[in-house]
């Protein structure tokens, strides 16, 4: 059946901001879908609030709405654009949930409204409702873990009597896994059930037989409207059941299933899709298998593309989202050609001849108060994928791709930390799923604990453990051989097991480059193989490669002008999709300009690792060794290191210097090295806060003796304010320094050394922070891309702060000063490409805080706000183009004005209820949204709605301020009262306001006083609808932190700065006065 001609326009719902569990993978799938549907001639309308995505580039859709993803907004878009169909399966859970809300509101999926394609309301409901799904599976003869619901202890006892122990308890309608518990004895059960009932606001718990320790599998399925079904990929989890699959190490294809079991699982997956009613598209189905007897149960399914489908696409070369989009418009699998072989159709099941390992990356170090233990709730913020011919090779490549200071499976300096553990403690740790577990397992094997002992303790499959044991045994063997005795065969065996040169260097006590030279001298070099969907059965042209140590290399020689772009590796807080956006744009721009682009990256979620994005894709770890391998294979004319964040920048100094294009590594160093930077600022006469650098506690104290407190303390060469904090006195300084000194020993980012000291600067209180992104070319022309005024005061990390273009409060002449300083700094650093500079404006004085001659997190936001594609222009400048040339080409146009754009951060605190959500100098947001409108107030209101904390229209404002903020508090209280909110305050704040003639509506005592109704109670009851709470400095868990936590749990907007409160009041006022309108980016940009 060919494509449908009865529909002409399609609305795609994106997934919104990056949050834990929903990351770049939906930009990858959404971008593919937009491309394909446009190619097919449909009019594509896109709604997504996330400006950092490629999909929201105006080129990818006919109409791009960067608007809040709410039913109200989507209704307006539908009314305005009148799409024939809505495709909800490419925008993650957000897309599906919105589709259901639109359906229930009668706006889609019913006669006279746009049709839902890809998945209908009934199938979404069947898949998403736990109880309905279980019933459906039982109906078709598949097993599910036995379970029952209970509303009181009596019912709970009945359920447990029926299903037996051990069980897992999941309270209904809770956030962040609160009240979830496991029980293996009746005593534990009674406690866990009571706790769960208590945690659930509706006193309802699901009691389910625990299958923790079972083997976990996932199948990626595609189905077309002719009922053709294929499995794209099977995935086996390294971590047994009990750890969320997003937090598990996973391996493709499945390794320990007989064909009999695999085919049974395949049949079950198809039956599941058919019963749920997924008519077309991709879905994943998760299974658990009892390792003792093969008993298989269905865990869940997602009737949409997902994180694992992105992984499966990258793992096999089968582009699930692209094909799902085509299936949604009526094609069948056999009508779609396999992109990779070109000759064969998409109606097949990929066969792969390598092993793919995905390893998550977490950010617990940024979230103090979290246990760091993995469980049924996903907590990771990113992931790395590695391809090797065997599991040991791909596993070790995956571990070194994480960039967490480890070189592979131990055999590195960080392994020394295990020396302090005795065997019993080590085995206990092996059984606790944490980010450290693989390394603990490796160490346990090295100490000679048997595979069976470890398997009994951890349930990690013996096959995986034995494969790890091969690595461990090889290491011991290599150690007995010694560096000078290594033969070609020895080198080859070690490299085939995935040992990195730095690991071998550590083992032999020689430099990594000596290892490299020694093995290359005997002819052991990386060979590159191709990802081709068919295990080499057919010829494939797709230039998608991975390194391994085999006989032959498959990279085709080419004589084009080749440029390597280094990507940004796994997502982490501080380095995410924004940098991938920049790398992708560089690839697009340079390809357009006639270069062959070569992408190196190891993040399976991203658009950069789509084999369509660049001329060639190398799915490799971003380490010196792996990048040098590609350089040797490709002979590029240049390497772009300044667009992928800190990851490629850190590599810049380790690569052939003549190949680095753009701003020179020396200039990068001048901006990063405090002494050189001070000299530069002094020469330019640009004021900056007093400060210095320190490696030891004493050095740090010497600096504060001179400059006084408070100070801002931060390690050099890190991104996202890792380890950054505001320190108010000597004691705090000593503890901050000790912690930073400890980082290096733990193998974490940010360890201190003479080359990487701590920066200590006087902190400017009450200053306004301003970010500038600018471009400079080799002729010395500078173009200011955007001047962004932060909503939160200086001291809140720029990544966590809302900001606006154009600056809403800065005087025009202050902006001119800022632009002038930015230009001088760009000249002084001889920037060729992008530079980001941060300023703090106090009174009328502009202080420079820091400069980074590279792409910043704000580049995509500025590009969407102004219509100027900064990253594309920067990449061209790096390869020698001038701004004038690019102007003539039409790539550089004057910025679009006439509207205000607000970027707001999205924070992960609902996943981590134990963490105080107060903002500070360490970045903790995972993503961002953008609001665009004609005024700052309206744009700010949109940005709040888009970040799921819409401004209230009624209820009460709760206000509690630190002394310094109290004067401004009067204004805040007045503004909110004007908006019709009642004002509730703490005693101290109320008394202060009363002195100025402002009487609050209600006064509350402190939580610690434990008398009467507390703010937490009123937040829970819904009476308080907006909170202004400015933290009173550090210390223990104060009232403020309880209030902010309650706000997160009950999803009440909470701002922690006066500035944000005033911005909110302005937004509320303007939103009340003007009906909300939606407008596409194409209209804003005048396209």
């Amino acid at each position, binding site marked *: 059946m060919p494509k449908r001609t009865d529909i002409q326009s399609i609305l795609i719902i994106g997934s919104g901001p990056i949050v834990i569990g929903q990351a770049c993978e939906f930009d990858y799938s959404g971008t593919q879908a937009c491309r394909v549907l446009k190619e097919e001639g449909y009019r594509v309308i896109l709604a997504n609030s996330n400006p950092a995505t490629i999909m929201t580039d105006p080129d990818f859709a006919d109409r791009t709405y960067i608007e809040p993803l709410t039913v109200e907004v989507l209704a307006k878009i539908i009314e305005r654009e009148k799409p024939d169909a809505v495709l909800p399966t490419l925008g993650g859970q957000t897309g599906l949930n919105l589709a259901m809300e639109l359906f229930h509101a009668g706006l889609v999926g019913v006669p006279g409204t746009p049709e839902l394609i890809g998945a209908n309301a009934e199938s979404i409901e069947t898949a998403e409702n736990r109880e309905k799904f279980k019933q459906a599976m039982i109906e078709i003869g598949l097993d599910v873990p036995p379970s029952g619901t209970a509303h009181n202890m009596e019912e709970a006892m009945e359920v447990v009597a029926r299903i037996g122990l051990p069980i897992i308890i999941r309270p209904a309608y809770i956030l962040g896994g609160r009240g979830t518990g496991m029980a293996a004895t009746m005593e534990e059960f009674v406690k866990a059930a009571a706790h769960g009932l208590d945690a659930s606001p509706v006193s309802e718990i699901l009691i389910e037989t625990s299958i923790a320790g079972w083997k976990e599998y996932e199948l990626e399925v595609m189905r077309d409207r002719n009922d053709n079904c294929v499995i794209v990929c099977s995935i086996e989890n390294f971590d047994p059941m009990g750890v969320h699959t997003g937090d598990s190490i996973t391996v493709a*294809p499945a390794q320990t*299933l007989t*064909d009999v079991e*695999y085919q049974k699982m395949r049949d079950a997956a198809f039956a599941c899709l058919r019963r749920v009613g997924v008519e077309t598209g991709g879905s994943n189905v998760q299974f658990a298998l009892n390792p003792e007897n093969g008993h298989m149960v269905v865990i869940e399914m997602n009737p949409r593309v997902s994180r694992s489908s992105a992984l499966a696409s990258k793992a096999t070369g089968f582009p699930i989202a692209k094909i799902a989009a085509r299936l949604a418009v009526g094609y*069948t699998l056999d009508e779609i050609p396999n992109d990779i072989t070109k000759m064969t159709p998409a109606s097949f*099941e990929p*066969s792969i*001849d390598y092993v793919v390992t995905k390893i998550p990356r977490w950010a617990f170090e940024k979230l103090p108060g979290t246990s760091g233990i993995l469980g049924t709730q996903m907590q990771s913020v990113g992931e790395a994928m590695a391809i090797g011919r065997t599991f040991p090779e791909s596993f070790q490549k995956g571990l070194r791709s994480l960039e967490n200071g480890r070189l592979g499976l131990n055999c590195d300096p960080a392994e020394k930390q295990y020396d302090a553990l005795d065997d019993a403690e080590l085995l206990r740790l092996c059984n606790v799923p944490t980010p450290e577990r693989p390394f603990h397992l490796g160490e346990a094997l090295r100490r000679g604990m048997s595979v069976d002992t470890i398997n009994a303790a951890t349930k990690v499959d013996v096959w995986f453990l034995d494969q790890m044991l091969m690595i461990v045994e090889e290491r011991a063997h290599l150690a007995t051989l010694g560096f000078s005795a290594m033969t070609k065969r020895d080198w080859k065996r070690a490299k085939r097991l995935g040992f990195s040169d730095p690991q071998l260097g550590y083992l032999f006590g020689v430099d990594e480059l000596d290892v490299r030279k020694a093995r290359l001298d005997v002819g052991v070099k990386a060979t590159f193989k191709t990802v081709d969907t068919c295990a080499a059965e*057919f010829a494939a042209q797709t230039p998608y490669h991975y390194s391994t140590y*085999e006989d032959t290399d498959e990279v085709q020689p080419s004589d084009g002008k080749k440029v390597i772009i280094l990507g940004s590796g796994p997502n982490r807080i501080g380095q995410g999709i924004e940098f991938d956006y920049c790398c992708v744009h560089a690839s697009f721009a340079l390809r357009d300009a006639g270069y062959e682009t070569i992408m190196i990256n190891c993040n399976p979620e991203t658009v950069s690792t789509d084999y369509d994005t660049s001329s060639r894709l190398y799915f490799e770890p971003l380490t010196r060794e792996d990048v040098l391998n590609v350089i040797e294979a490709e002979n590029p004319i240049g390497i772009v290191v300044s667009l992928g964040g800190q990851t490629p920048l850190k590599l810049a100094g380790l690569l052939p210097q003549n190949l680095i294009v753009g701003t020179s590594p020396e200039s990068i160093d001048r901006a990063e090295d405090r002494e050189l930077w001070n000299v530069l600022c002094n020469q330019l006469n640009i004021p900056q806060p007093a400060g210095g650098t320190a490696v030891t506690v004493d050095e740090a104290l010497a600096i504060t003796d001179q400059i006084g407190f408070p100070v801002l303390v931060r390690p050099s060469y890190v991104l996202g304010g890792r380890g950054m904090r505001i320190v108010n006195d000597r004691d705090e300084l000593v503890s901050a320094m000790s912690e930073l000194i400890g980082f290096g020993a733990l193998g974490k980012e940010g360890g201190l050394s003479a080359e990487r000291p701590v920066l200590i600067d006087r902190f400017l209180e009450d200053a306004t922070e301003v970010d500038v992104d600018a471009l400079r070319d080799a002729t010395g022309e500078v173009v200011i891309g955007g001047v962004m005024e932060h909503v939160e005061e200086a001291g809140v990390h720029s990544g966590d702060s809302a900001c606006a273009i154009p600056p809403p409060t800065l005087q025009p002449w202050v902006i001119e000063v800022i632009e002038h300083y930015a230009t001088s700094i760009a000249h002084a650093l001889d920037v060729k490409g992008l530079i980001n500079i941060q300023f703090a404006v106090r009174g009328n004085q502009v202080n420079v805080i820091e400069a980074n001659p590279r792409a910043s997190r704000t580049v995509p936001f500025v590009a969407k706000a102004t219509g100027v594609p900064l990253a594309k222009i920067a990449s061209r400048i790096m390869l020698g183009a001038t701004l004038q040339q690019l102007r003539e080409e039409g790539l550089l146009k004057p910025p679009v004005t006439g509207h205000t754009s607000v970027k707001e951060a999205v924070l992960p605190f609902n996943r981590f209820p134990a963490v105080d959500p107060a903002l500070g100098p360490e970045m903790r947001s995972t993503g961002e949204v953008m609001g665009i409108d004609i005024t700052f107030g309206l744009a700010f209101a949109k940005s709040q709605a888009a970040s799921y904390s819409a401004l209230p229209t009624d209820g009460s404002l709760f206000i509690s301020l630190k002394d310094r903020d109290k004067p401004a508090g009067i204004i805040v209280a007045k503004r909110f009262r004007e908006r019709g909110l009642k004002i509730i305050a703490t005693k101290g704040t109320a008394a202060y306001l009363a002195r100025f003639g402002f009487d609050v509506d209600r006064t509350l005592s402190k939580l610690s006083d434990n008398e009467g109704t507390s703010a937490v109670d009123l937040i829970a009851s819904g009476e308080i609808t907006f909170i202004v709470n400015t933290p009173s400095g550090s210390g223990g868990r104060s009232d403020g932190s309880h209030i902010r936590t309650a706000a997160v749990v009950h999803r009440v907007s909470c701002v922690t700065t006066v500035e944000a409160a005033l911005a909110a009041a302005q937004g509320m006022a303007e939103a009340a006065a003007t009906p909300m309108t939606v407008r596409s980016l194409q209209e804003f940009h005048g396209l």
Partner: protein
Amino acid sequence: MIREALLVLSDGEVFEGEAIGAEMSVAAGEVVFNTVLSGYQEVITDPSYAGQIITFTTPHIGNYGVNLTDFESRRIFCRGVIVREMARRRSNWRATADLNDMLIAYGIPGIGGIDTRRLTRHIRDTGAIPGAFGTADESTLRAAALVEPGTDGVDLVAQVTTSQPYTLGSGTLRIIAYDFGIKHTILRHLSEYGEVTVVPARTGAVDVLALKPDGVFLSNGPGDPAMSPCAVDAIRELVEAGMPTFGICLGHQLLCRALGGETFKLPFGHHGGNHPVQQVSSGKVEITSQNHNFCVDPSSLDGRIEVTHLNLNDHTNEGMRVNGANAFSVQYHPEAGPGPHDSQYLFDQFARLMASAKGRSGFTRNSMTGYETPGLPTIELGVAG
């Protein structure tokens, strides 16, 4: 201890590896590849691989061990296996032995550590190619590769077929199954529908008709269909007698030749578990298990057959129905073992054909219990679990 070994192809290509499985200084055969991700035990024990050395494109082989029920024949007929990585430790509740131990027990040598992707790409260009591997020196292996005849023009069926008839299953339908190298999974399927008598490949039509069967099944098997002329004669007589007939793989090719059609050798054959086959009548796509080097030329049967199935990768013939007769056949493996279950409806189709020829409106089907079929020859693994 590692035993270094070499693989040498008849065109001189050399691969370095290490010996696995049974000890042998020289093993020779026709080198082919298979792209299945799971199912190595079924593949290795499939009689259709008689005379061949199987290269697995999946790097890790042996991970889930071997068990007593996933055998496809009474012994192993392939000449050897080539892998990238042989598991040294298995993990699966069904396993009773390691794959490597099974190879040793059956005297099957192998070679590990091979860049199987390089080898596969090579075979993709040269076609299935004679080769030799083992611990012998390169010139010995080269000589062995050069004298290896391959599978063209060799009667391999005679080597694998049963010497005596045997019967399994029970029920109202009586099926005669020609054993050209029949897989046990096929017998498991057939015995769901009735009593199955397996007969040697050279059994004549008269002897088959004397057993008064309701239908005749033509099995899979190794090698060149042109090398079994006497089976071709028997099939012709049976089809002309109106006997309900169903053929799989070699059975499909032999049916073609019985109708006077031609078969030819594919460049490197189809060996995998992921080939898309389209049902011509409905347009539906089945993902199929395939293992053949030879292929039916439907144009040589113009007017005598209806093409029922097509391979979507290379558009070669995958199935046919004989006009004016009760016979149909497919090139691929609907029984799976290993492979997808998408095409198992064909066994029902065969049962329907037999029932209607008998004047009945339907058939009954016993459910396959577990994985074993009572009555199949017992497999002795001969190694400790």
